[in-house]
């Protein structure tokens, strides 16, 4: 059977891979992935095929063919590599005005890991080919299921054929019997049968049922916007902030622990860090400038403007700052091209002295009450449970359907932190049942979490 072969094939690959690692301590693409994420991803595209702040890394080994040692040096310190006078190194130094950060802590092995990861990503699109999503066990399980479906379909087909044949045979036999009995009857051709009143009505009926079913199903989904990922005024990357820099979700979304709203952070929350961080890894000054524009901050002087500073002054300062050269976080000077600066200013100027209008992504249906504090503090639910792996999202999107079915399902399954919170002491019977083993857990549903007025009032 096909699915078995799949299984064997993967198991074999896996075992082989594992053995090879043990035997040769070969470069590990998983290590490479971690290292890449931590060090490289802020400037180099993960797909290895496109340029970002840094160039696309796909095929880097071919380009440095024969100069492996120099490549190690380059990665650790580009300036040092260029100083050797290597033509390619010098060419790459001029690739972009921004200078690549130095990574003296990376060992040769580390770099090998990263290179393997780069190669794998470039050629196969994943860290460890063969590329499958999820881990191997689940993959085979889904394959298995799929195999079964095919089996059912095949079985259904054969049986249907058999039924058709049998029907035909009975019909023929009947006809023959009729003829033998001397009753000449008109036999219907297959076409006639298919266009008969009964079959047509049946088909129409089936179409109505199917159509109704589809319509209802689609209608239920009206107004839902799962995967909604609109363009935001600032190209804010959760991947950079929550992922790479590991800023706690609730540092910015400080309402989550004390209010029904998680809260889009106030502009001055951004300023807590961006008073010091003047340029970003991806867009340089361009996106961060919008925060300054909205908050009335002059990055050139590091101070806020006086109230009633004329709009012209704000504009002029902003334009000058965007065009000015700047120091990256290692203290290297970066020059800004004039046309880029102009383009950036074009984009930034509409935010000068204006409110920051974010596009709201998570819109609850009307008449539904939701409280973040209840879920985050009282329920101890992780942000990611409902919002997905935000720390990996370059562009924020709606992860969950936010439908009532989705809420209710979670309330059915989620266990209440029953023993730890004295609030639940009044549920004496449940405590007894838990103790006696009659219940193994108390779900939200058990304490009334499915009742209408828990969410609708």
């Amino acid at each position: 059977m096909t699915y078995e072969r799949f299984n064997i094939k993967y198991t074999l690959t896996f075992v082989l891979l594992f053995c090879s690692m043990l035997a040769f301590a070969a470069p590990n693409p998983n290590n490479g992935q971690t290292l890449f994420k931590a060090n490289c991803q802020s400037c180099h595209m993960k797909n290895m095929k496109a340029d970002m702040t840094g160039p696309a890394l796909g095929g880097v080994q071919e380009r440095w063919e024969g100069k492996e040692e120099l490549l190690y040096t380059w990665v650790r310190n580009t300036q040092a590599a260029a100083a050797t006078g290597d033509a390619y190194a010098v060419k790459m130094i001029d690739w972009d005005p921004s200078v690549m950060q130095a990574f003296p802590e990376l060992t040769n092995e580390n770099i090998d890991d990263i290179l393997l990861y780069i190669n794998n990503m470039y050629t196969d699109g994943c860290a460890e080919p063969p590329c499958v999503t999820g881990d191997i066990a689940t993959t085979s399980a889904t394959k298995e299921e799929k195999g079964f479906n095919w089996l059912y379909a095949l079985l259904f087909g054969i049986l249907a054929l058999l039924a058709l044949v049998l029907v035909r045979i009975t019909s023929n036999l009947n006809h023959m019997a009729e003829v033998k009995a001397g009753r000449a009857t008109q036999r219907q051709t297959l076409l006639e049968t298919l266009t008969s009143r009964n079959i047509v009505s049946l088909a129409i009926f089936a179409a109505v049922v199917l159509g109704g079913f589809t319509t209802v199903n689609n209608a239920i989904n009206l107004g839902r916007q799962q995967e909604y990922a609109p363009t935001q005024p600032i190209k804010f990357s959760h991947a950079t902030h929550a992922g790479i820099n590991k800023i706690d979700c609730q540092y910015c979304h400080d309402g989550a622990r004390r209010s029904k709203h998680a809260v889009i952070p106030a502009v001055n929350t951004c300023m807590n860090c961006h008073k010091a961080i003047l340029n970003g890894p991806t867009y340089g000054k361009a996106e961060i400038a919008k925060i300054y524009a909205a908050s009335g901050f002059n990055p050139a002087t590091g101070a806020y403007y006086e109230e009633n500073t004329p709009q012209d002054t704000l504009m002029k300062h902003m334009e000058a700052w965007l065009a000015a050269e700047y120091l990256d976080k290692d203290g290297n000077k970066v020059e800004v091209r004039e046309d880029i600066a102009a383009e950036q200013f074009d984009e930034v100027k509409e935010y000068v002295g204006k409110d920051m209008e974010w596009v709201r992504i998570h819109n609850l249906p009307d008449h539904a009450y939701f409280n973040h504090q209840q879920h985050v503090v009282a329920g101890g639910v992780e942000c990611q449970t409902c919002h997905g792996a935000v720390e990996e999202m370059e562009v924020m999107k709606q992860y969950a359907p936010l439908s009532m079915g989705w809420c209710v399902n979670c309330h059915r399954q989620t266990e209440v932190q029953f023993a730890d919170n004295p609030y639940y002491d009044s549920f004496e019977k449940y405590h007894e049942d838990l103790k006696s083993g009659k219940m193994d857990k108390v779900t939200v549903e058990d304490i009334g979490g499915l009742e209408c007025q828990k969410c609708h009032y």
Partner: protein
Amino acid sequence: MNNANKVWASVNEINNDAEFKKTQQQEFVDQKPVDALANEESLKSTSANRRDFLKYLGFSLGAATVASSCEIPVKKAIPYVVKPDAIVPGVANYYASTLLNGGDCTPVLVKTREGRPIKIEGNALSSMTGGGTTARDQAAVLSLYDTNRIKAPRGAGLTFEEGDDKWAKIDAAIASKLSPSSNIAIISNTLMSPTLKASIDQFKVKYPNTQLIQYDPVSASAMLDANEASFGKRAIPSYDFSKAKVIVSFDADFLGTWISPIEYTKDYAKNRTIKDIDGAKMSRHYQFECGMSLTGSNADHRVLIRPSERSTAIAALAGALDIGGGSGRGLDDKIKTAITKIARELTNNEGSSLVVCGSNDKNEQLLVNAINARLKNYGATIDIANHSNQRQGDDKAIYNFVNSGRADAIFILNANPAFDLPYADKFAKKLESTPLTVSFNQTEDETTSLCKFACPDHHNLESWGDAEPKAGQYSLIQPTISPLFNTRPAGQSFLTWAESAELDADAEQPYYEFLKKQWESNLFGKTSGFARFQNFWDSAVHDGVVSMPSEGGGSASFGGDAGAAISNLTKPRSGGIEISIQESIAIGAGQYAGNPWLLEMADPVTRMVWENVLCVPVKFDGINKYIGGYEGMPLDTGDLVTVKVNGKEMTLPVVLQFGQMQNTATVQLGWGRTKAGAGSDYGADFYPALTVKGTDTQYDGVAELSGAKGREKDFACVQLHHTMGIKGMGTEEGEEINVDEKVLGYKGFQGSLTERSVINQTNLSTLKEFIGDDPHDGDVKVKGLLYKRHHFEHLNEQTLYPYDEYKDVAYEQGHHWGMAIDLNACTGCGACTVACMAENNIPVVGRREVRRVHEMAWLRIDRYYFGDAENPNTVYQPMMCQHCDNAPCENVCPVAATNHSSEGLNQMTYNRCIGTRYCANNCPYKVRRFNWLDYNQADLFGYNENKIGKDNDIMYMADDLTRMVLNPDVTVRSRGVIEKCSFCVQRIQEAKLTAKTELRQLKDGDIKVACQSACPTGAIVFGDTNDKKSEVNEQWKNKRNYFVLEEVNTRASVGYLTKVTNRDEDFS
């Protein structure tokens, strides 16, 4: 006829009127909506026919399809730039402040959400109110968002260009019209703010010929004069009703409108509730009046006197107490006997009695002072040393000013004298002839619209300020929102015009700085325990109230001349119909008439909304009917009559009022405003009917009635809307039957349908008998309430369904919410009903809709009478969803839109409701309300919208400003769904979450529902009945407790405590 055991609500009911019975048997009373629509003038012109209907149907279906298949609109979210530390979006902040309007002063907490005030709660730190509020206080947030407010200053002949500093221009213009020798009159209602007075004093430095004239629309001027004559102090004393065992009131509506109603109500109720029926004690309250006032309706005995007999009656009481004054010649023998008995009782309670008088007659007040002095009440129940500042109006000053005063400039400071003076027309003329007239009022009212300059003051909730309602009791006003419009504090205007050195004009909030300085120099020195002024100030801002050490003593020696007062008393009028004109509970003396919540609040006694009515007496014809009206002039509720008082004619509808004295009438003051926004042109203005005696305004007179002149078209009385348990007289046998019984055709059906228990009431003397023996304790010798309830329990167990098994499983753990209402503590003031409107986004529907029985209030206060029909006692019953554990509404909903929660809540889910209204039909308490129209302007289709206002042209809630009052935690309901009391589920959920977050159990008292927290007497208690120690359980264990319609097995969660009066059986 004595109806001691009978409770009734209206004349038709007690008369067993055939037409009335018919309407009561219909589920939806009055016109059917279809008829009403067909008759509606406004709809006659529409020409929609079947084809149009189909077109619209097709179009709307198509539109809906297109609309829903198009892209979802992009929603923007705009964060703060700099988030204030105190504000967390989604979390309410409470600020201590004070609501101050003329003589009304209430320390409150203002609930704000995202910087906008949405709800008023009482400030429990105030020793004066103890956290109680009035309906007027509750409605203050709506007046903040009044679209009728003046949005910027204006001046005659001044034009502004864009970018102009309007205030600077106004200041310059006013300064140019004033000179140091100008005669300036500042006309104000009672001014309780020491800081505002200080700023006027600053103004006087520059303009020495300035006089401040205070007056009160409903005046206590004569009382102040009498106190000055008696004790040398022109002030109102503090009354302590909690120490009074016998209370005698002559026309003083101290629970409703007189001086300081919250304080008095709070104290009064302390002596009216009964915890333990053994050795129960209550105060006894006698009320002398001609019409049924709120206070009178709570009295044990009402002695009916004509307004002109009041003087004689007081004199007779003085006589009976050996002060002199005669025996009450000219009074009815019945009244004389009553006075003798009352005098005896007062003498027995020397030092623990209280006699108050609401009249504006100096001689009467002087005599009342003499009586109180004779009864040794000063220093006991009355404290003149720590006086009240809540009435300071001086009738003489305003009268003389209007009639003979001379002024170059008139400043109107929070007053409306062109409307609320008996000589308002004269005042208006004076305004027109004065060169400079400036109004600080917030709306273009009758007076402001006549003024040349309007310099609008901030709204109370936007301003800094202070008040000293009682000597030594300071209350701070702090802003809870930045000013919505281009307004300026009146005090700042005075300081600016005075060019005062005290004003720091460059400060961000100059008046705030001035206020702080005033407090620093005047109050900080008197306090102890604060190292620096800032500490004192912070504490004052936080608490909202500051109490200075009170002055000792309080007893004062009476120095008035009682003899002279007696000889100067007025003699009773003979003959004619006398009319008494009283302040309205809801809209005051007209100051609150622009507030739709108050306009739609049912008057506690007449249960009228949106207008005033003439209360006329009811008489028993001696056979079996009650007839309303006067000798030779039968009148019925809803008839229009023209009343001529003091030469002025007013036309208004009639209400037959039990307890109204024969040949008298009562009417409310304050209605008939012409420039009050949504409240314009409702009711009849009775200020012109007021007379002046000497200089004092008199609130009674002689009325000439025209007789019925047709019917009021939009008569909006909620009295018989949503009634339950109607009984009447059988037509054949002449015996009493239950209307429901008749409907069902079963006679003598056991249990549920006979003898419904809606109201239980008894007298203190018969209380023990009434309660009877507890069947749970063994033999029952006295069958009373407990026996009856035991019987109900037995009946309720006779069910096919094993209900009690379910009950144990369903509610044995977690919470089960319940409520207890003490009918003895409830005075019917109506604060809870408006609090409920504010908390739960309940729409205002307007008079036209109320007439069609479409009012939306979740909480109504049913008013029932019992006892002597011509002079009955009253019981008020707050009635809201009873959250029945065996709810009849839940069983009949075809879509399960109403169902029960594990916490015992009867849940209403608006999004599921399809509007069949089966639940409303099946609710025995009649507490479910249906959104017949889109009252809150919540949906897209204009046709469903409702309009209010006299000309039916105000789309209430349609503008963003008014919508700011909505509570964001409560759904705004659209057309076509049922709604009802939710036990403030949003507050329950909030308190539960707080407990969970703080890792603790929910404490009793954590949850205070809106009606509960508004109540000045604590009549409403809410809590978890599963918590054995909760107060609600304590109340339920009180032997007076019963459940309304317990016999129909609804298993309600609201317990009521039997009403007990303290009537003297020998008193006739």
